[in-house]
């Protein structure tokens, strides 16, 4: 477990900023305690300082997970967000997409969101902007990328994909073994 290098931090922040923008600051500079990012087995964990201290007692090989896993660095050194980061993305998300109850399940099975399932969308959402997906009851379901801008969403036909799926809470079941 080690702190992230500058390069890694930059890559990760760039990725995160697609979803929550400058709200990353609120993650880094938290008023309720010191929190930090740690790299462990190519995965980035967001840990409270207290837990970090406790985690020092566990050897590197045995430590499976500590804090909240935000995602992992691939072999090509790109950062990939995991669904476990949703808890921290959802409150700070800038662009949101609400799916209709009928389309919820489809999304939770890993499918993209089509126009017909789109219930509500934040205005001024750009194309390929990172979005957090909510159910109509405002329960965060996952996140993805807007395939169409808000203006385009108005015009496309109902079966067109408006949001690309990246992660959903269904992964907690589907990828139970790999999620840490």
């Amino acid at each position, binding site marked *: 477990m080690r702190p992230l290098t500058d390069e890694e*931090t930059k890559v990760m922040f760039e990725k995160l900023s697609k979803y929550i923008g400058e709200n990353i600051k609120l993650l880094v500079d938290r008023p309720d305690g010191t929190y930090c990012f740690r790299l462990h087995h190519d995965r980035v964990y967001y840990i409270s300082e207290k837990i970090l201290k406790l985690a020092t007692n566990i050897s590197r090989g045995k430590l499976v997970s500590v804090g909240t896993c935000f995602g992992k660095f691939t072999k090509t050194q790109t950062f990939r967000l995991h669904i476990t980061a949703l808890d921290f993305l959802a409150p700070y998300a800038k662009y949101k997409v609400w799916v209709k109850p009928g389309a919820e399940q489809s999304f939770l099975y890993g499918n993209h969101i089509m126009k017909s399932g789109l219930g509500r969308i934040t205005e001024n959402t750009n194309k390929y902007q990172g979005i957090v997906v909510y159910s109509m009851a405002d329960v965060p379901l996952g996140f993805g990328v807007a395939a169409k801008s808000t203006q385009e969403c108005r015009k496309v036909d109902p079966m067109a994909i408006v949001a690309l799926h990246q992660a959903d809470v269904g992964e907690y079941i589907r990828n139970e073994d790999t999620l840490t």
Partner: protein
Amino acid sequence: MKRLYVGGLSHTISQKDLRDRFGKFGEVSDVEIITRKDEHGSPLKTFGYVNINISDSEYKRCVTVLNKSKWKGGTLQIELAKESFLHRLAEERQQAAEKIQTPRIEAKEKIVESFKAAGVENFHMKAAVPGTEIPGHKNWVVSKFGRVLPVVHLKCQGKNKVLKYDPSKHCHNIKKFETEDGFTPVSKLTWEIDGGDEEISKRRRGEFPPQKKRPTETKNESLDPSTIPYSKTAPEKGTTAQNRDGALHVLQGRKPRACVLDSDADSEDELRILAAQELSQNHKTVATEDEGNLEVVGDDFVVKSSMFWGRGETGMIAHLGLKPPEDDEEYDSADTDEILTRNKNSGKAEDLTETGTGSNKSPVKSKKIDGKKPAIKNAQTPTESESDTDAESSSESTDSNYEAMMGNCHRLKLSLADLEDLVKNMEDEESGDDSSAGPSETPKLCSVHETGPQRAQSKKSGINPEDILASLFGPDEDKEEKRKKDKKSCLPAFVGTKDLFASTAIPTGLKRAAEKVNSEFGEEPKRLRRGLNSLEDKESSSAQVPTLNKKDTKVSMDRSSDEIEITPEPKKLASKQSSSLKVNDRTHSVPKHRKSLPQTKHSSSNEEEEEQTIPLQPKTSKAHEIASDSSGCTEVSEASSDEEEEKSNEPEVASKPTCKQINENTASGPKPFQQSVFDPVKQQQDNQKRLAAVEQRWREAEQQKQLIQGALSKVDLPNANKGKHIVFDSDDEDNNDSENTAPQKASLFDEDSDEDDGSGSEVKQDLREKELKKAGGSKLFDRSEDEDDGTEEDRFKIKPQFEGRAGQKLMELQSRFGADPRFQMDAKFLESDYDEQEQDMEPLQTAGEQELVEEKMKNLSILQSVLNVSIQPRDTKGKIFKDISTLHYDPSSETHAAFETKTDPPKKESKAARRKKRDEAKRLPEVSKDIYYDVTTDLKEAFGTVKEIQNEKKEVSWDQDDDDDDDDDDDDDDDDENKDEAPEEAVPAFSFSSNQEPEPSSGFQFSFFGNDEITKTPTTDEYKVETIKGAKVPWQADPRFQDSSSEEEEDVEEEKEEKEEAALVTTTEQPAPTKKFFFFTDDDIRLKEGPSMFCRREKLEDQREAWEGKRKELREEYRKKHKDAKRQIKMTTKT
């Protein structure tokens, strides 16, 4: 007439050529030449049509001759052409016209005629069997009623079959219409609903209000077929367009910022309109869900508080007010729910307020009744006091159980008529009541016995209906409802009381009543308690009038703890009812003490023995009121829950005061009584058993609790000594319990035997004993409870020495050493190493967190670079984390005062301020009394040079008075005008001042001689200023003013000179005496010089001459100036 096509013509050919050429074969009527040209205008191909009157032989000859013949550079090609379309059209028209002219009726007439020949009249053939063919008409058949109908051949759709429909074969289907006059015309078949002008009825009638915006929907449906599948996907789209339109409107009204995408067919105009709406109404976006609509929300869209971690549904319900409905029905239902709850709440609130007022008024009323009491004392008192106490008890009970009870049965009401009926029914019974109560009313000591029946009465009947009516018609209207309720609940029990009184007319009946009470207390715990209260109240009122009121107030004060008391009520009743039993319930003691307070009070008047308890009781009761909040509450609830688990059919179990229970009470009211009449002994035994069971249960609970307590206390304290203490304590408590229980059980049996004996006198004594014991028992418990409470309260209090950070450490230290006072650690122990620890802690923290802080800063800087936004690290200490979603305005917190909009106070202030300002504006600006002179020239120079001239000048100044007078006269002559007062006034003043002033140059000497000079000099100054201004102001063109101004100017000039002179004079006057005092001394130089100033130093003639000479100059100068000024004014007016 033929039309020939002639192709292959040369481009230069003319119509005439063609005409000549074809004229040989026939008469050419018309020639038409058509030339095809390319884009440049050069002809490609030329052909023509020739209308020619030609015979067939001639045509053949023409073709053979001319076809493929070369003519004028082109090979002719001749064919027969189709008729010109104009021709054709004309022909068609002609034909159509002809057709119209030829009447079609002919065919019909033909048929009719032919039919006539066949014997058919008016399509009717008489005396013909259906199915017979009309002779001569193959396709006409005779059908039913002799009607002649055609056989129809129908071609099947899509098939080549031809169906033959023979009407005669289906003639049974045909019915003949009765030709009656009773036909209702079609226009009258429709009916109308007279619904008035309401929206719905209008719509029902088919009148819709003019719709403002329909274009979207119509467009969508008419233009864009692609929307149809989309709309089909959404169920709501199945509804009419109008519906959707309405939805759209609603949406727009609801959430101005979110724009609705119906589908792809949104035109640009609409979008623009929507955008405009968004802009104009800059509200917060409210979420709306419309099935078919995509919604776009702003950045500031607030996700509902239920947003995270899926409390979805419940949260949604809570937020229904905000949240728009999924469909209308849902919304409606939710709405009604809301309304219902609101109604309920309001109803509750009303009731509460009512009871509040009632309880407040009750003491007053009781007083009133008490006042009446001595007069009527004998027969009337029972009923009176009863009503009184009932009112109180009802108020109390309603207070205590109110929320639970009234929440459910607030619709319980009786009409006046019902009450009257009841009164009528009860009148005969009441006579019995009075007779029974009357004799039992004995002097004060017997009041205890009285209470027996009364208690029963109150328990059973609650209230006499008459009383209710009286109170209804009486002035006290607040209790109306309460009484109604009471009455309702007590109605069935009324019969019981009658029976009761019939059986308990003799004093021994008391016992029976008690029995019955015992049997009943299970069913009616609450009312029993009420009865008990009423009993006490009555006793106190009969014995001590003033205490009653006191008690009332106390009761109202106790209301807060009433809720806790609700649950133990049945038990308390049990202990009260079979007070000889003296059940050892600690939970009971909580409410009991409260009760014991009034009890002891009343008993003190009766029996002196108990007086000693009085000082103790109030204290304990108070303590319990406090304790009941913290500790007693849990106990009671535990006990009650235990009870509820019991399946022993004990109605006490249902200790919660619900509406159900009330119903139960009303229902079971008479029943237990009958039971008790038949089987009192058995009931008694049952009750005892129940009580025992309850006791047992309670004790178990208590033990469990203690066990848990002990275990918990052990957990925190590592010391072994502690454990011992706890063990010892618990032993002690157990002993106490057993001790307490033993005598009580004995007394229980005593009571039993007493009751078996059933003699009146004994019962009396027993009752007294009961009370005594009750008091004693309660006293006993009071002590133990009191101690407990004390310790418990102390236990949870933060002691002052443990407060703060140092205190925490001290506590840790102490906990290590146990509770032994010998080894208790003082603050002294802490002081020694406290500072060191602090210092040690600091560097440790910094060392550990330094890296993290650095990392954080680094992260922030990276973030900054990533986002290209300046990010400031937050003040670590300043801000406290706030969850914005839970942020609410809290009027109590001072910081939230910033959210308040203050309107009134500043306004008022501003008003006052405005008035002030106005006043100030009205007031003239204050002119300070001090006058300052700036000395521009160097003083030294002034002193040096002026010395020689002094004398002359002084003389001049000395003449001035006279001269001025003269001058004024002259002025009058010259300017033929009344002199202004001011200059005159000013001049002497100045001269005077100049005379008196020793040194004006130094600036402050004016004050030497009082205010006169000071006030005058500024006026002159002002004048100067005004006049100078006035010369330039155009409205002063009036000659008078000008004159005056000139005059003033003159004067002013003079004054100026004089001033200078005076200044010089003064300077010369005091060269030597450097020291000058404000006050005059005896041999002051000034005193000596002063008188000389009043005398002329030169002769008057000389002075005059000098003045004359000077005056001319001055006058001319001034006139010139005056003219100039006039000219200037004229100029300005002209321009």
